């Protein structure tokens, strides 16, 4: 299955794009998605990142389904 992964702020700057699409095996979780992203983009291991799934903070063991909206969130700095 394919999932969309949104990128923001310094992550979008490093990636040079605001969105990745990645092919995942069915049964994937947030943790396996993250591992797949890190092997494609090793610089991700160097930066602190949280993950959101469908616009809420995601735990590592949450399953990822086709059509989910995933996002990589750098440390927030609003206000």
């Amino acid at each position, binding site marked *: 299955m394919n999932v969309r992964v949104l990128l923001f702020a310094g992550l979008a700057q490093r990636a040079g794009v605001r969105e990745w699409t990645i092919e995942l095996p069915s049964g994937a979780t947030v943790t396996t998605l993250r591992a797949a992203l890190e092997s494609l983009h090793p610089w991700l291991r160097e930066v602190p990142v949280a993950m959101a799934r469908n616009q809420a903070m995601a735990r590592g063991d949450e399953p990822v389904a086709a059509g989910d909206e995933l996002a990589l969130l750098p440390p*927030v700095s609003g*206000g």
Partner: protein
Amino acid sequence: MGTTHSNRSHLTRSAIELARLVAQVATVDDGAICTFVGTARRNSEGREVNLLRYEAYPEMADQEIGAIVAEAERKFSGARIATLHRLGDCPLGEASVAVVAAAPHRVEAFAACRYVIDEIKARAPIWKQEQFRDGTAWVGDPGSFKPRIP
């Protein structure tokens, strides 16, 4: 009264007008209104900032701020809250975020206002980019400095 703001966005690309936020929550039954405004500062760790630029994950940020407002209205009895965070370019001295809390008494007004700004800063998926004379950097993201190409 947690429904006051449910259909209003908490994000804006225009200048924030504090008086309009106050008008959204003030009534003749309130005795106390506390506001907080965060403004773009000229200096950041000794370097001169020319402009701040805010980026958000807009749908999630709006939901998260709405959740924070609802929490504060539950926690602090009688409080009603309005809040806006600016996105895009924010010139020096202009408001990047504003929170207004109205309540019958000042203790709740101060506490609700403080809760909302603290939680927005901790939880809302919003990022601040400082623009210097010689480049830009995302706050809290070491290694994101990008030199300005002349």
